[in-house]
C-alpha cells in the first residue's frame, strides 16, 4: 500500500521510498523514512493534498508525492 491510499484516522508504517533524488531527500529529512509511523488526518475538500501526522507534527503532502511512500497498515 502507498501513503496516498491510507484512509483518514488510519495509521501506517513506512517500509520503503521510491521517490526521485530531490524529493526523496526532502521526504526523509522531514522524517518520512523507513520505520516512521504515519497517521492520515484528513484530505483537503478536493481530496488533495492530504494532511498526515508523524513525529508529533502535521505535514501536508500531495497525492503525487505520497504515492512514492510505501506503508504497511498498523492497527
Amino acid at each position, binding site marked *: 500500500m502507498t501513503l496516498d491510499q491510507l484512509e483518514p484516522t488510519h495509521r501506517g508504517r513506512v517500509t520503503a521510498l521510491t521517490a526521485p533524488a530531490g524529493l526523496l531527500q526532502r521526504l526523509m529529512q522531514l*522524517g518520512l523514512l523507513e520505520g516512521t509511523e504515519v497517521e492520515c488526518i484528513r484530505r483537503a475538500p478536493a481530496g488533495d493534498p492530504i494532511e498526515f501526522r508523524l513525529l508529533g507534527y502535521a505535514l*501536508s503532502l500531495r497525492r503525487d508525492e505520497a504515492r512514492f511512500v510505501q506503508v504497511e497498515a498498523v492497527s
Partner: protein
Amino acid sequence: MSVATAELGVDEERLPLIVTVGNPNTGKSTLFNLLTGLRQKVGNYPGVTVERHVGETTLGGRRVQLVDLPGTYSLSAHSPDEMVAVDVLLGRIGDLGRPDAIVVVVDASNLRRNLYIASQVLELGIPVVVALNMVDLAESRGIRIAAARLAEHLSCPVVPLVASRGKGIDALKSTLADTLKTNPVPFVSFSTTIRHAAAALARELAPAGEPLDPYEVERALIDEGGYAETRLQQRFGAAAKAALGGVRAELATGGSLAALDARARYAWINHAVDGVETRGAARTTTSDRIDRAVGHPVLGTLLFLLLMAAVFQSVFAWAAPLMDLIDGAAAATSDWIKATLPAGAIASLLADGVVAGVGSVVVFLPQILILFAFIIFLEDSGYMARAAFLMDRLMRWCGLSGQSFIPMLSSFACAVPGIMGTRVIADPRDRLATILAAPFMTCSARLPVYALLISAFVPARSYLGGLVNLQGLVLLGLYLLGIAGGVLTAFLLKRSLLRGPTPPFLMELPPYRLPNLKSVLYRMWERARMFLVRAGTIIFTVAIVVWALAYFPHWDATTQRFAAERAQAAQTLSGEELDAASADIDHREAATHLEESLLGHIGRAVAPVFRPLGWDWKISAAVLASFPAREVVIAVLGTIYAVGADVDAESPGLVARIRASEWPDGTKVFSLAVALGLMVFYAFCLQCAATVATISRETNSWRWPAFAWLYMSLLGYLTAFVVYRLAS
C-alpha cells in the same frame, strides 16, 4: 600603512558573531527579539532577497553581534535563498565573518524533526548551544525532556526555554557567555568517509590558490540536484558534475547518498531522544479541535469564504468614521490656509498642493491598518498554512502550488514584498509565473482608488438588514477580478512560456497559536510607517510637481481679463445676480487657468488616446501622472479638482467635485460606465515603479518587467474599453 592599520583595527574590533538557526515555527524570531531588543537592522543579503536580521547584545560584559537565519528544516539548499544559511555558517558573507557560536532553536514538542538540522550544525566545528524552546507546550502535551542527558548525547549545552514568556533567557545568555570564553567544539560526525571524499574532491576541483570550502563540496555530494551542486557546476563546469556523480556512485553503491545520510542522522536522533524523552498518553489539543472544524470540507471552506468576506466588509465599514475625521481635518486646514494667507502661488501651493495632495492619501491609512491587522493575525495564528492546504488544489489548476498562495496573499497588501516572497518557491518556472501574477492582486495602493470611485458612484444600498452593502460587494468584485487576472495569467504562462514538470509541495501545518498582540501591533506599525513614508516622499513629490504643472504658467493676462469682467459685473449687477455672476466668473477663471496650464496641454495632447474609454483630459492627465505609483491618482485628482472646480463652494470634498465635473457641452464626465471602466483599468494596469524594479531584480532581466508592464497596461486599456462600451 594607514590603510593596513585601519584594517587591523577593524579586525581587532570585530564583535563575536552568534547565529540563530532552526526550523520554521519554533519561536526563533521571538527569541532573537528577546536577545537583541527591537533595535535590529533589517536588510537583505547580497544578490538574494532573504531578509537579513542583525542585532547586538551584551553577554558577560562583552558586546556581541547576532544574526537570525531564515527558518529551515535542513542545510540542504535547493535554491539561492536556502543557500544563504550555508554561506553565513561558513563565513562566506563578507562583512559577517565566520560565526563564533551557533544557537540551534529546537521545538521541545517536536524534538526528532527539529534535531535534524542540529545534527548538521553540530558537524561544522563551531561551538553550538541548543535552545530547547516551548517546553511549556511540550509539557501540556505530556512530553518531558531530560535536558542534561540530551546535552550529553549532543555534546553541547542544552538550555530549556519558554521564549514567548521570557523564561530561561538569562540561563541562555550565561551559557552563551561561557561558550564564547571556552570555545567548546562539539564532536559529532556522521560519515568520515564522505568528509574525506569531499576534501579530496575540493582539492581536485579548485585550482591552486582558489578557495573552496570542503563543506560546500560535501553539501554538493549529499544534496544531489541541489543548489550547492549547481553552484559548483557554474564555477568549475560540467567536469564538476561528472566528478560528483563518480564519488557518489563510489560511496553509495546502488543506493542514494542522500538517503544514507538521512538514515544515519535519524538513527542518531532516535538513539538520543529515546533515552531523554518521555511521552504521556496522546491528548487531543485545542489546536486539534480547531483543526477538526477548519479542516472539515464543507465547514472549513465556508469558514474560509466567510473570513475573506468579513475582511473586505470591515475594511470598508470600520474605517469610515476615522477616514471622515482625517478628511475633515485636511479640509479645515486647507480652508484655514486660504483664509489666513494672501491669495497667490504660495497659498495655492500649501492648500491645494501640500495639504490636499498628501491629506487625500493619508486618509486611507485606517483601511490599510485594518487589512494588515487581518493578514498578520492569519499568518501568526497558523491559519495561513491551512489556507494554503485548502487552496492548493485550486492553485494547481492554474499551474501553481499552495506555496504561491502566501506570496499572492501578501500581494494584496503590496506586490513588492509578495514578489520578494516568491524566493521560497523552489521551482523557477512556478516562481516566475507567481511573480507575473502577483501584481494583479489588489494591493493597498489600489484600495484608495477603488474606495474613492465606489463611494462616488456606487449607491450605498444595504441588504439583509445592513449585513451586506452594495459598495462592499463591488469592492469584493474588484478583488475577485484581480484574482481572476492573476490566475489566468499564471494559467496561460504555465501552458506556454513556462511549461515544465510539477515540483513537489511539502508543507508543515503548525499548531494554532494565539498571536502575540505586541508583535502584531509592531508589524502593523511597520506597514503603516512604510505606507506613510511612501505617501510622504513619492506621493508628496508627485503632488507638488502636479500642482506646479496645473498652476503654472498662470498668465497674468488671464487674471486681468477676468478681473475686468468682474469689475464690469459689479457696475451693472447687484444682489443675488451679482453673486451668481461672480461665482460663474471665478469658475471660468479657474477653468481657463487650468486649460492654459502645462498639465492642461499634456492632458489634451494624450486625451485622444483615452477618448474611447470615455475619459476627458483631466482623467487622462491624472492617470498618466499615476504611472510611477497608482495611489498618486487620488492626489492628482484632488489637486486638479481643487484648482479647477468651484474653489469657493463650501468645500464639497473630492467626491462631490468629481461628480460635478462636466464636458464642455454640459453633460457629466463621470457616469457609472466611466467609473467602472476606470476601476477595471486600475485593477489590471501595472502602475507601480517599485513593482517593475522588483520584478527586474528578482528575474535579473529587463525582459520580464517589460513584458509584465506592456501586458498589464494593454490588458487594462482593452478591458476598460470593453466595460465602458458594455455599461454605457
